[in-house]
């Protein structure tokens, strides 16, 4: 079996075995949405609705991705070191986190729409925004989690390092999904999708180039 897919399969198995982490994240997003519902009641303004949703997704993403390299035992690190190349490891983690975040973001959006209402005109386009946005978030935050894991396993460091570099992505994805909510045509919105794709490609290339320097001690 290809090392990348077996790494993903192993992460998936671990995730199912430790159900508490997924449950914890779900409770986290649900309570965030509920707090927003209690404080706003109803959001009529579309930019506010959209921005708040992405902020919830951002914080959930940080919490979800933080674990991907943090608190990995010395044994597991050596095990990876012996069996796979760094590029395979980072690519496996980025793809796993992307899938995980897409699922989390869709669940968040469903809850959010349930409580705060929604008026998304172009649902497929909005979904594409979630997929592209989560791919970018996961690639940046996975790399940041790898960096933070080498800097004393401090979980808040992921947010400190990640937030400034995630701003371009977040600004683009917020604009893209706002256009999807407004039902603006593909010809206009395609530009933003291409920027997101380019950002994702750039981050993955940087991760492939830089991660090998990170993981060896």
């Amino acid at each position, binding site marked *: 079996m290809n090392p990348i897919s077996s790494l993903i399969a192993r992460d998936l198995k671990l995730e199912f075995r430790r159900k508490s982490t997924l449950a914890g994240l779900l409770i986290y997003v649900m309570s965030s949405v509920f707090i927003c519902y209690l404080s706003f009641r109803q959001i009529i303004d579309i930019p506010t609705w959209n921005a708040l949703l992405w902020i919830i997704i951002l914080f959930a993403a940080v919490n979800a991705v933080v674990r991907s390299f943090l608190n990995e035992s010395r044994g597991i690190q050596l095990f990876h070191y012996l069996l796979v190349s760094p590029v395979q490891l980072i690519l496996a983690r980025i793809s796993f986190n992307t899938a995980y975040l897409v699922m989390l973001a869709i669940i968040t959006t469903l809850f959010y729409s349930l409580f705060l209402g929604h008026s998304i005109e172009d649902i497929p386009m909005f979904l594409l925004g979630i997929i592209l946005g989560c791919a970018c978030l996961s690639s*940046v935050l996975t790399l940041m989690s790898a960096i933070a894991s080498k800097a004393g396993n*401090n979980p808040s460091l992921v947010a400190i390092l990640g937030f*400034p570099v995630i701003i*371009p992505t977040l600004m683009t994805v917020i604009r893209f999904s706002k256009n999807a909510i407004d039902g603006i045509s593909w010809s206009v919105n395609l530009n933003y999708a291409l920027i997101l794709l380019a950002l994702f490609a*750039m981050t993955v290339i940087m991760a492939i180039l*830089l991660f090998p320097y990170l993981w060896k001690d």
Partner: protein
Amino acid sequence: MNNMWWKLLGSILVVYTVIAGFLVDVPEMAILNETIRNLFFHVTMWFGMMILLIINLVYSIKYLGSFKIPSDDVAVESARIAMVFGILGLITGMIWANYTWGTWWVNDVQLNGAAGTMLVYAAYFLLRGSIDDEQKRARISAVYSIFAFTMMIVFIIVLPRMTDSLHPGKGGNPGFSTYDLDSKLRMVFYPAVFGWTLLGVWMMTLNLRLRRINEKLNA
């Protein structure tokens, strides 16, 4: 005395910038009026910062190629002076914005990009602060700064061109070259960029020497 000439040149250029910058004839523009002179102080700060950040990038890559601590020293000191230039650029920009746009800060891609860049390099110093081992600190912060630099390029160069902006030279706005009909601004602007950058590099080398002395004393 051999390597004195560029320091001298830098000082002369900065003195020239300050004197000529306030005395030269400037194009008469509505709204901008005399504030156009800020061109020699605000825009040049960002040029200086970008050049220092490129030095940081080059030495970070150099460190990852050789694992020699002196490269890392150059990287961190250039980032530090770049921060000084960035903060001065923000302050001069805010003063300028207050006189021309009527407010200290507007929600604009260019301004937010500049502020984001400051945050990125603040995080860089925080990251450095949280690692004790010298080699490890150098390696990990080099990785972060290379990654941060590529994201920053998107942030302050690519994104502002894609959207509307108040800032000159961005979002389809004309830059200052279109106002500069008789090249008088250029006569001061280019020496100013060069002078401020030389001054920045000088500050960097001074800090670098101080750092090496401290290392020797503590060794």
